């Protein structure tokens, strides 16, 4: 499990953030003591750091510079300082990403996973997800079963991927729409219906006709 370190002095916010990231499959730890923050952060040996700027004792920009002297660990600055200058400064000091509060949590999540993937060199194979008897190849946007290969459109891929990530749970249409919008596909209700129908037809071609179950009034679930 990948380890994320939260460096944030607002207790309530960091607890909620930890809860959210834990729920999303990360091992999240919080830096409690800011007196010797640089050493404290390095000792945690995290895979990724979420770093606030306004902190007690030392500010985040200084901490960032100090960490960069000895480590290349991915760092996302998370701050309420929202000017272009602040962002440029942080990026110049070596931050990988810059996110302003209040953040869109899905986007923060996407940035975390994107950054982890990039830095940890996850090879293409790990972008293949096996489900039932077929394999979803996310990087090639195809589903494979035995010798059969079926191409998915961008939206179909995102929908199926999201359903697989949430397998066993009921996923509402609203949730799917939100996920698609967060990834720059601005689809409306009608388009979602069309996409679902097409996706099901494609799954039928590989004999997975009833793979997506409709829960009336609630949404969809992967069997």
């Amino acid at each position: 499990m990948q380890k994320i370190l939260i460096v944030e002095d607002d207790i309530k916010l960091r607890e909620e953030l930890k809860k959210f990231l834990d729920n999303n499959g990360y091992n999240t730890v919080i830096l409690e003591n800011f007196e010797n923050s640089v050493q404290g952060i390095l000792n945690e040996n995290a895979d990724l750091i979420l770093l606030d700027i306004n902190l007690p004792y030392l500010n985040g920009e200084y901490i960032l510079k100090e960490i960069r002297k000895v480590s290349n660990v991915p760092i996302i600055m998370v701050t309420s300082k929202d000017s272009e200058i602040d962002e440029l400064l942080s990026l110049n000091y070596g931050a990988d990403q810059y996110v302003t509060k209040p953040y869109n949590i899905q986007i923060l999540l996407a940035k975390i996973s994107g950054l982890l993937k990039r830095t940890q060199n996850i090879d293409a194979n790990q972008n293949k997800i096996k489900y039932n008897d077929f394999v979803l190849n996310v990087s090639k946007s195809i589903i494979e079963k035995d010798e059969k290969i079926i191409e998915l459109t961008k939206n179909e891929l995102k929908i199926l991927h999201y359903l697989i990530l949430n397998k066993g749970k009921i996923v509402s249409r609203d949730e799917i729409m939100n996920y698609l919008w967060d990834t720059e596909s601005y689809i409306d209700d009608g388009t979602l219906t069309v996409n679902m129908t097409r996706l099901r037809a494609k799954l039928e071609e590989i004999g997975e006709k009833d793979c997506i179950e409709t829960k009336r009034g609630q949404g969809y679930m992967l069997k």
Partner: protein
Amino acid sequence: MPIVLLALCLEIEYYNKNKFYKVLKENMEELEEKYLISEIIKNPNFEEGKILKETLQDAGKSMLENVDKYKFSQQDYKEYIELWIHEIKMPIATSKMIIENNKNEVTKSIDEEIDKIENYTEQALFYARSNTVEKDYYIKKSNLKEIVNNAILKNKETLIQNNIKIKTHDLDKEIYTDSKWCVFILNQIIQNSIKYSKKENKEIEIYAKEEKEKVILYVKDNGIGIKKGEITRVFEKGFTGENGRINGKKSTGIGLYLCKKLCDKLGISLELNSEKDIGTEVRIVFPKSSFINEALK
């Protein structure tokens, strides 16, 4: 003989004073910042002139002190607003996090209200920024598509809830601007499109066209439009017009006024076309001056 001498003295005095006041009047006319007049008057060689110059100098100095006092207090107030806004963003962020961890119908409804608070907060921040003389932005190479995506995402919930179709195309263009400011401006415009949409088949189309010296961003909706006589007034502060008085719209007349002001500061032009019952088209024109492009490379 003494009379002739007296007449000659008076003549010289007249000549001197006449010349002094004539120069003074000319200078005053040419001067743009008229309060600086005492600085450029030559030292007069007669008594009234000296008194005049000293008086003007004292008056000018006292006025500058007075103006400085207001400049200071405005700067001070602006700094307080900025600080306050950074503070208020913390509880907003925490609230949104708590909502995310406790998703249900009630928290979803609260989330919508929190989004409104966030929007008003942003508006206050940019209002404070729009009122200062100093440069508060940073022009750099930015991608138009990213700016548009950010602005759309800020309105995601409302757009989905209201079943508004978003069409975007031809946005992959480089512009030179402060992207944070642009996201704010675009956000205000999209919010207007949402606010003044019709009941059915709602659609907002966002795209860009590149011309020789400029990149034009179009935001086109098929909403209720603006009455002909009111189009020229939409950028006025506090102007709400007929649409602003429709039940439940709660127009403040600040959004577009602020956009225009920020655009002026950034050197962007903001244009608006509208037809009642057909829709509204807003054009944001980014200059593509080769000078800026070269200087920033």
